[in-house]
């Protein structure tokens, strides 16, 4: 079975400071890892993913994430936060081997990011 943990319900950051949103995962085989962002009353927007290759993945809007296999983590980071980054962030995982099971994603419970002036 696959699972994702986002240990922080909310993260508060001052604008201009670096931000980190934490994610740890559990999966049987090689993980495919994703980050999505959701603004109020909107669908989820894809930010970035890790499938293979470089452990540091760069995505949309200046976000990046670092895959750490030994710590089974995939933390989302940004060097300098903006007020407009305030939103709900979801980490998701699935096993990399394609199966007949619809390639289902397992999502974390989400972390609310609040960036203040």
């Amino acid at each position: 079975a696959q699972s994702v943990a986002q240990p922080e319900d909310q993260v508060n950051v001052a604008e201009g400071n670096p931000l980190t949103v934490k994610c740890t995962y559990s999966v049987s085989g090689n993980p495919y890892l994703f980050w999505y962002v959701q603004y109020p009353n909107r669908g989820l927007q894809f930010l970035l993913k890790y499938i293979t290759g470089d452990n540091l993945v760069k995505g949309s809007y200046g976000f990046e994430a670092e895959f750490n296999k030994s710590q089974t983590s995939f933390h989302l980071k940004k060097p300098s936060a903006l007020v407009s980054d305030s939103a709900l962030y979801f980490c998701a995982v699935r096993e990399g081997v394609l199966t007949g099971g619809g390639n289902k994603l397992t999502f974390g419970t989400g972390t609310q990011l609040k960036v203040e002036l």
Partner: protein
Amino acid sequence: SQTIHQWPATLVQPVGSPLSLECTVEGTSNPNLYWYRQAAGRGLQLLFYSVGIGQISSEVPQNLSASRPQDRQFILSSKKLLLSDSGFYLCAWRESLPTDTQYFGPGTRLTVL
């Protein structure tokens, strides 16, 4: 480019009434399709997924059903809504190549009174 549509955007329905939510995808063929519900909190619950026309897998036994009458159309239905069916319903499609990524629609806010 591919786009995904959901309608209606918002819906208020009385308890016991039927439901039909529609999701369509443009610009791709034979996508995997998914229905999620996001209750007032934040967690996403996978309700159904489909790997092809007429092929539906249910993740959680409940008051809802899904159908895929056409390749790029995914419908979520109920014969009689319950108060607990209220929530934000999200449709998603998976692009197998080149990105192997799920992309989400704008969602439908359902309120059952």
